[in-house]
């Protein structure tokens, strides 16, 4: 049975297997109570970062374009879904139904933003594309911070100034309160939901990569002009990868919004710092390598927490580890040295041939 599978299928099954085993192990440990509450609280964030890293890898690794605005799509997903959940908190009382609807809304809104931003952005190339995605991410964060939405008997009120400018009746409630964001989002996200979302993300991304569309996308990455000359619609496929990636980031945002009771947009959660953080996962895990992204996201999310004992020095050590790992993985001289002194199985085989 295994022999009949292609190399890709086998590799994909291993990826699914790792995720499922990790989930089962963690779930067992949590129910056995042998994990600190701090670590347990990290489970949903880890799921969020895994989804973000895998979805960004679709743009950076598979499409071959550098995006620095991934957190912007996460922000869109988070705020649209939190807005929905807060409005519907008393209308839909079944948690799971409300969460699924919120998830759908978050994903669709993020996908729409992906298309709207993708159309102009994907005309650019290389570093220019990167800076424009960064700019869009910052604009989204900035606009969310000046947005005020309230609701009263007359319906919704919008403003970009302050709460007073909403002109609400006395019974009105403020839903989105500018820099204070949205408070009172139901805490619907669980480790199980996060795990299922990771599996769905993997299913979408891995199937896309191994499909006709995925090969078209990769051909654009490898040589755009050659791809164009064999009749591949470059704009369509670029937009496809970008939009799917945005939609998945939106799903991560929904998870994020429903894991916290207060949702605000600042530099660290939806700004360029976050986008760069996700990019670090992708590059460190291996550009284009989905399994690598998952592992890097998990390890790098846990690392600062595991170093917590070192207190003030933890982010310093994190930075040093990051630099050293990059040098170890990518520097041509180190790679040469590694091949000579550390004998990895695959490399040995090549030597024999």
């Amino acid at each position: 049975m295994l022999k009949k599978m292609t190399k890709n299928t086998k590799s994909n099954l291993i990826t699914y297997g790792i995720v499922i085993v990790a989930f089962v192990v963690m779930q067992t440990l949590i129910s056995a109570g042998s994990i600190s509450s701090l670590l347990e609280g990290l489970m949903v964030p880890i799921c969020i970062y895994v989804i973000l890293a895998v979805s960004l890898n679709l743009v950076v690794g598979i499409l071959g374009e550098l995006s620095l605005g991934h957190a912007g799509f996460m922000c869109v997903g988070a705020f649209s879904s939190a807005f929905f959940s807060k409005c519907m908190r008393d209308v839909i009382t079944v948690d799971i139904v409300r969460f699924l609807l919120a998830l759908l809304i978050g994903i669709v809104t993020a996908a729409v933003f992906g298309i709207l931003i993708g159309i102009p952005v994907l005309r650019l190339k290389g570093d220019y594309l990167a800076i424009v995605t960064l700019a869009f991410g910052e604009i989204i964060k900035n606009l969310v911070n000046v947005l005020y939405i309230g609701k009263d008997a007359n319906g919704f009120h919008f403003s970009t100034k302050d709460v007073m400018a909403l002109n609400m009746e006395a019974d009105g409630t403020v839903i989105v309160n500018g820099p204070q964001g949205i408070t009172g989002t139901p805490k619907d996200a669980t480790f199980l939901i996060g795990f299922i979302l990771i599996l769905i993300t993997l299913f979408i991304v891995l199937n896309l990569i191994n499909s006709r569309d995925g090969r078209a996308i990769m051909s654009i990455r490898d040589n755009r002009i050659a791809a164009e000359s064999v009749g591949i619609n470059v704009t369509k496929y670029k937009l496809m990868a970008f939009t799917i990636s945005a939609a998945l980031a939106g799903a991560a945002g929904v998870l994020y919004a429903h894991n916290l009771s207060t949702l605000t947009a600042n530099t660290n959660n939806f700004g360029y710092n976050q986008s760069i953080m996700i990019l670090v996962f992708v590059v460190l895990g291996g550009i284009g390598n989905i399994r690598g992204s998952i592992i890097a996201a998990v390890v790098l999310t846990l690392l600062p927490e595991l170093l917590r004992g070192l207190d003030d020095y933890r982010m310093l050590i994190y930075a040093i580890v990051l630099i050293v790992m990059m040098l170890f993985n990518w520097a041509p001289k180190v790679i040469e040295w590694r091949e000579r002194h550390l004998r990895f199985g695959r490399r040995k085989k090549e030597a024999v041939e």
Partner: protein
Amino acid sequence: MSFISYLINGLSLGSVYAIIALGYTMVYGIAKMLNFAHGDVIMIGAYTALIAMTQAGMPPIIGVLIAVCVCTLLGIVIERIAYKPLRNASSSLAVLITAIGVSYLLQNIALLIFGANAQTFQSVIKWKGISLAGGKLNISGETIVTIVVCLIIMAALITFVQKTKPGQAMRAVSEDKGAAQLMGINVNGTIALTFAIGSALAAIAGVLLCSAYPSLTPYTGAMPGIKAFVAAVFGGIGSIPGAFIGGLLLGVIEIFGKAYISSQMADAIVFAVLIIVLLVKPTGLLGKKIQEKV
């Protein structure tokens, strides 16, 4: 009258952006990398000057010189340890992420030494400035000095790059590394020199920035760094006059945006203008158009 005062403030802020952007653009032109740690070199420069002036009690001019020396050295060390080994890496993203690592490193070193609390930076410029139109238009000393310093740096840099031997070497290396090496140019030395100049400029920018906006934290450099990066792209990354124009325009747009539209949305306006410019002119205002070959 307020229009003129906004314009002058914009030009002053823009001058700081321009000085930082010069560092970005020179490094990009020669090493083809986005040096994300550049913004944090600004912060280190400002802290060094602050320490030299308050703790060691040195006169401002010496403080600035020490900051320039420390940052120059820092720039060379960073390039040597973190960037040089990755110069021929198979992906250009590798060095980008390393630069991000260096940025975290500098921020956290500063955090450990100086703490997270904002420190008040004393302006290095003691001059009160001038008052025009019967006191209606006040221009502070910092504003004037910043603009003048930026113009001097700009002129000096263009002369250096166009007229001197090391400047020519720089242009040659940015054009074609291999060919430059064959012509007997010391490529490693030239790249190190570029980092040194960029970092020295960052130190000056840091002192000027903190003289105008006197609150200094380990994260002070991050946002001006990103804005200057935007300015460099705006003007066409790799182009020295482009960085100058991009920086000035960005500063003016930001101040006008703050004054006339909305102070909270100033950043969004800056980024929106960048997007529009890049959509119309995909390689920035003065960027070279690169013909793609099969």
